[in-house]
């Protein structure tokens, strides 16, 4: 395959960025999207140019490191996968592919296609945990039975990989899907009940402080989420928030 790549290049957080075109040849369908970028980077290095920096690590869709807005969509055209799982067989010979970083005020660009998603860490730090000591002196695991459906729903929410596609997909750059997934994981389990009120209030406060936008229910986040995190989580978080607010 012969392709034209239009890639966002930005030297560092302070520099002004721009789109740069790169022709590329010899791309095979079995290559992953990131392997295609590896090929480009090897060519750039050979020419003595700065390779394109992008975040990636596990390359099997679970660490949440890779990002990329590909032709306007987070993680590209396919559904329920991350960029590292996207394969070039989804593209055609002669295509032009536009590659940008995830765009949001709360995700400043670090370099080229790399953004700073530490805002997500700070939201988790505000309350995304159960305050139990890790001493091992807890009760036997089976003394807390959990309804299977609740456990399954909690698990489904907990599979969020924190990649930020929901924010990049949202016209408001809202982090509601991300935040609500964590709130839901605990809201659905007995272990999470004790701190439920503080958790949702603190996490939402931090989310707002980080400069993420509000949710206007467009549902783009759910469609682009590589893990299929459901919008129901946002509804659940709103209920949790409302009930926490009335408790004062």
């Amino acid at each position, binding site marked *: 395959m012969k392709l034209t790549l239009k890639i966002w290049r930005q030297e560092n957080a302070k520099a002004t960025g721009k789109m740069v075109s790169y022709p590329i040849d010899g791309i095979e369908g079995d290559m992953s999207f990131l392997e295609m970028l590896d090929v480009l980077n*090897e060519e750039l290095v050979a020419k003595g140019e700065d390779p394109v920096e992008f975040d990636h690590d596990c390359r099997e869709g679970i660490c949440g490191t890779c990002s990329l807005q590909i032709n306007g969509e987070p993680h590209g055209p396919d559904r329920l996968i991350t960029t590292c799982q996207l394969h070039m067989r989804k593209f055609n010979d002669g295509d032009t592919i536009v590659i940008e970083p995830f765009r949001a005020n709360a995700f400043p660009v670090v370099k080229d296609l790399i953004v700073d998603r530490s805002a997500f860490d700070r939201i988790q730090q505000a309350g995304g945990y159960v305050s139990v000591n890790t001493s091992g002196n807890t009760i036997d695991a089976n003394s807390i039975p959990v309804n299977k459906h609740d456990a399954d729903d909690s698990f489904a929410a907990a599979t969020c990989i924190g990649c930020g596609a929901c924010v990049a997909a949202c016209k408001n750059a809202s982090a509601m899907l991300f935040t609500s997934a964590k709130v839901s994981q605990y809201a659905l389990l007995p272990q999470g009940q004790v701190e439920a009120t503080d958790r949702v209030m603190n996490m939402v406060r931090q989310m707002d402080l980080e400069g993420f936008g509000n949710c206007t229910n467009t549902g783009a986040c759910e469609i682009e989420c590589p893990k299929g995190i459901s919008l129901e989580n946002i509804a659940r978080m709103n209920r949790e928030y409302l009930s926490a607010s009335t408790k004062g």
Partner: protein
Amino acid sequence: MSILESKIPEGPLKDKWTKHKNDINLVNPANKRNIDIIIVGTGLAGGAAAATLAELGYNVKTFCYQDSPRRAHSIAAQGGINASKNYQGDGDSDYRLFYDTVKGGDYRSREANVYRLAEVSGNIIDQCVAQGVPFAREYGGYLDNRSFGGVLVSRTFYAKGQTGQQLLLGAYSAMNRQINRGKIQSFNRHEMMDLVLVDGKARGIIARDMVTGELERHSAHAVVLASGGYGNVFFLSTNAMGSNVMAAWRAHRRGAYFANPCYTQIHPTCIPVTGDHQSKLTLMSESLRNDGRIWVPKKKEDAIAIREGKKKPTELSEEERDYYLERRYPSFGNLVPRDVASRAAKERCDAGFGVNKTGQAVYLDFASAIKRYGKEAAFTSGHKNPSEAEIIKLGKEVVESKYGNLFQMYEKITDQNPYETPMMIYPAVHYTMGGLWVDYNLQTTIPGCYAAGEANFSDHGANRLGASALMQGLADGYFVLPYTIGDYLSKDIRTGKIPTDSPEFEATEKEVKDKIDRLMNAGGKHSVDTYHKKLGKIMWEKCGMARNEQGLREAIEEIKALREDFWKNVKVTGSATAKNAELEKAGRVADFLELGELFAKDALHRNESCGGHFREEYQTEEGEALRDDENFRYVAAWEYKGEPSDAALHKEELIFNNIELKTRSYK
């Protein structure tokens, strides 16, 4: 030759850990506030240790190269975590988990460490459930289990195919609680470049801020290395792209012995390589071997026809298939340990029965599981005379609920639907049992420098059983280090803050800087990846699933030559004082080029086959590994002396008082 002091406590095996905990020194809460601990790596071992030590009151600094602690590669572990809870009532116990682990490791691990691991395993599950880790449950609300390779009980707890993710997010949440309290400072996108020793003790690290390129000095009273394994020395592995040996190797260069580097786990069920562009390999969880049956065609003609695309696997009848694991190992069948399953796949493929274009793949088939589950589901839902189509539909639903994410992952990568056609799999490098030598307290040969999780060598011997890596990481982090490190730190309560302007920090930082300058200013002929790929090829061909003396001797020479060429001719673009992925890779590959040679040297000296280390010269007539307990029942711990070829061997004899050494048999 010096004797390594393993510091195994006296007394009966089952009392050792309890007694040790009672005997060791504690640090009072007020003093803990004056003690700093550095933890490198935030996976299960590092994350768990950071959370627990911070909760105890120590000041913790964590370092990870990822942009968040949550992305450490523990996250990719799929199948599960072992614990001797015996919730299934199938005869499990601490002793049995201990026994299985020692046997699975081919009698090359340390009894006392393994028993402690088994002993705390149940606690891990309690802890994780209390944290809100959403494990799989049965309809009654209780925890579900499944089976893994090398054992005859169901002791594996799981969260679909994302167990590592859920456990890591649990540890990360515990870390977040401490970050929020100000007890952990987390340095992300930071790489440890070197270990700083003051008066022979580990007292800090030099780290590089990967965004600004700045070198930073961080001091502490103790340093924990929980930086994972070194599988990426093979270039292609199931490890994350960034996984590296830098922290452990730099500690090795400062005096920490490196143990059993040649013990590598080649995992039997990975997606086969498709071409030269391949950047990494993807694992298909061992849990799939619970239900998947592994086979190749019985007749070579069929294998050839399949390779040429003239036949489909589904066209072959039962009689035309060779379920070679079930044939060779009737009692364990498809659930033999990983090393055995990998070698058996290689044997069939080498004999010409491989099934993909390259001839390097075997089938993992779910057709019979789909039927079995379908019948069961039809029966329990009161469906007395289900049609074949209904059975298959119901069966697929059950299989999807168990392995859905793995099947999806497979389909995305290969463009084939594993519900309809058997998966193709082939072994790939997955885990390294070797690592920094540690004593019972997880301390390396450098006082104050500890190693936990995959970074140490202690628990898995020559082969790790499935679902035991998560167990070991969390055991080390939550339950072992917090005790043992206190014993060491109790002598440091009056030391006060370690200054970072000492000559030792100065000198180490300069060495780091010089090394970076050398990389930036080398000849500039070939990219870093060129060298990494060449190294990987040597490692896979000569130090992979089967090794022999001649190949290992060649590997040593070739790696040495490649390393010399690397330092002369590597090309690193960009600047050292900015984000620079090429420079990051170069530093890591430089270390792999040293480790690789030591790896081959270790494999060459071990004139026996055990676990993942298979020397072709040492095998039984049936092609099984032939151990030599008389001459090699020891841990090989290598001391750095400059060039890897000069490394000095130290032996820790392994003593088995509670287990009889036998030839491992899974027949």
